[in-house]
């Protein structure tokens, strides 16, 4: 029998398609209410951190250099009070096989797909993850399809995303490119169903377990070189996998006192599903358009429950601007001699400011760099912005208006970060979780929400009272 492939029919089969494409039944971890067994889901991968390290090491992934950014540190200290300005380091994740930390996620997911006997892997991503899955599929002898949101309705593609399509094809993958819109999920499911490939989702427990080695390596490298764990680790926050995996790895290495800071580019005001606004952005990832929804509503992706749950792990969530990230990218090239980013330098732009608030003997680690290429570079991205009517000026980044201008800091002393109110995000997550309950929220639900928001039961109960929800 031929299955109906219209929108409603495919979406109606989403639960069974996802189950078949992951070889994992998420119902095994559900309570039937708000709570689910998150640690049980993570353990279901069946891999220890040592096994993941072996899987990654086989394919040129992991154990990247921890580079000290001496000149950027020196520059940051010029703007800090005496005795302040932490030593800034960056994990040179661009040195992974396909050029980003996403190789860690892909290595694990693709190895698992191969073990389960799938013929191919599929992933929905417009970012570096596509190249990572394609690279791993090539190394492990599997077919690969990448589904990208790439163009607006005029057929104009984001240069950064077009470059990622090129790279995926160069690594042997098929790339399906789409216009803006959440219906990408329909096309993704439909191809998954027809191909029978493994869903190498960014949000599966295999992917997140793959990032744990990053946090683990940072903790171990610092302990070995400096005799202590880093005081602060700064992660670029988009889908939440970096924050979640890194923090879990730090904890597994014993670095429980390290402060984990998430950082996103502030794109407030731009709607991510808007056709017109799609090409008004000048960075296509690392921004609040992904970062905030994935923090407050993690279970909306291409798996029933996301293994990326950043609110569980972040101590602070700060924003920076497109102009600061572009300036920082140029700073990294000119002062440290490495051309990386731009989007992956979001955490570094924030770190430049955060380091100024820490004493000179503190260690601050930025968790990633990413490869640079045609289209994916400060010049084509600024040029594209200008062609799309975005004003590029030097000034104070506080005057930045996403979609209208890019304000390059008039001097490095003007770099700033803004803190996002975590309690507000916590309340938002609680509110979005409530509809899963079939009756009153249970004690297990409240304990789960306290963990999921890194708060406590009193906070959850107060938030539920505010919403008028019974428990």
């Amino acid at each position, binding site marked *: 029998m031929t299955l109906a492939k219209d929108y409603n029919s495919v979406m109606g089969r989403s639960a069974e398609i996802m189950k078949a494409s992951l070889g994992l039944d998420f119902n095994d971890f559900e309570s039937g209410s708000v709570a689910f067994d998150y640690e049980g889901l993570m353990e279901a991968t069946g891999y220890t951190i040592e096994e993941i390290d072996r899987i990654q090491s086989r394919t040129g992934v992991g154990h990247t250099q921890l580079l000290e950014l001496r000149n950027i540190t020196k520059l940051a200290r010029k703007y800090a009070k005496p005795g302040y300005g932490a030593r800034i380091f960056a994990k040179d994740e661009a040195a992974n096989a396909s050029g980003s930390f996403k190789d860690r996620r892909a290595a694990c997911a693709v190895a698992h797909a191969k073990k389960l006997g799938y013929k191919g892997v599929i992933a929905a991503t417009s970012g570096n993850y596509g190249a990572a899955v394609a690279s791993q599929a090539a190394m492990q002898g599997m*077919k690969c399809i990448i589904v990208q949101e790439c163009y607006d309705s005029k057929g104009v593609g984001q240069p950064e995303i077009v470059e990622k399509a090129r790279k995926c094809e160069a690594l042997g993958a098929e790339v399906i490119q789409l216009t803006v*819109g959440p219906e990408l999920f329909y096309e993704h499911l439909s191809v998954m169903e027809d191909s029978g490939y493994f869903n190498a989702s960014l949000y599966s427990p295999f992917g997140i377990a793959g990032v744990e080695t990053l946090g683990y390596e940072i903790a171990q490298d610092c302990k070995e070189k400096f005799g202590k764990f880093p005081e602060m680790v700064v992660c670029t926050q988009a889908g939440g996998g970096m924050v979640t995996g890194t923090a879990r790895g730090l904890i597994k290495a014993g670095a429980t006192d390290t402060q984990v800071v998430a950082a996103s580019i502030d794109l407030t005001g731009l709607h991510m599903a808007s056709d017109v606004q799609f090409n008004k952005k000048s960075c296509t990832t690392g921004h609040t358009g992904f970062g905030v929804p994935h923090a407050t509503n993690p279970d909306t992706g291409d798996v029933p429950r996301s293994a990326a749950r950043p609110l569980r792990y972040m101590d602070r969530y700060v924003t920076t601007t497109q102009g600061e990230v572009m300036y920082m990218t140029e700073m990294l090239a000119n002062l440290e001699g490495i051309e990386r980013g731009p989007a992956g330098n979001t955490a570094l732009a924030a770190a430049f400011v955060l380091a100024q608030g820490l004493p000179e003997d503190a260690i601050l680690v930025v968790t990633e760099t990413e490869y640079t290429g045609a289209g994916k*570079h400060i010049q084509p991205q600024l040029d594209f912005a200008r062609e799309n009517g975005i004003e590029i000026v030097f000034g104070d980044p506080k005057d930045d208006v996403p979609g209208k201008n890019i304000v390059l800091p008039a*001097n490095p002393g003007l770099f700033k970060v803004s803190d996002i109110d975590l309690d507000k995000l916590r309340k938002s997550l609680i509110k979005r979780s409530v509809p899963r309950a079939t009756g009153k929220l249970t004690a297990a639900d409240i304990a789960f929400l306290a963990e999921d928001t890194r708060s406590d039961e009193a906070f959850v109960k107060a938030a539920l009272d505010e919403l008028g929800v019974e428990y």
Partner: protein
Amino acid sequence: MAKKGDWVRIHKVVLPAAERTAKIPDDTKQVDFEMWVKGTLQNETAEIGDEVTIITATDREETGKLLEVNPYYTHSYGKFVPEIVEIDKQLREIMQFGGEE
């Protein structure tokens, strides 16, 4: 004219505007949900704009309108952006690269 076996790029409307889901902004609701994909042309011959069948890199069959034969990328390092030179100058001055005056 394209012939069987050529590497081509096709375009397809996956969902016409009228069939799009409701939870999207108004501007997106007014436009089709479109797709582009590449593969080997299966038709004996075809002209640009013809409805054709291709076999993709993962051996999937897809249909759509023929858009390009021998498709290639044109993204680049972009046109000159003078602000970048200004950033470079400023950083070198502050850091006094080449020795302090």
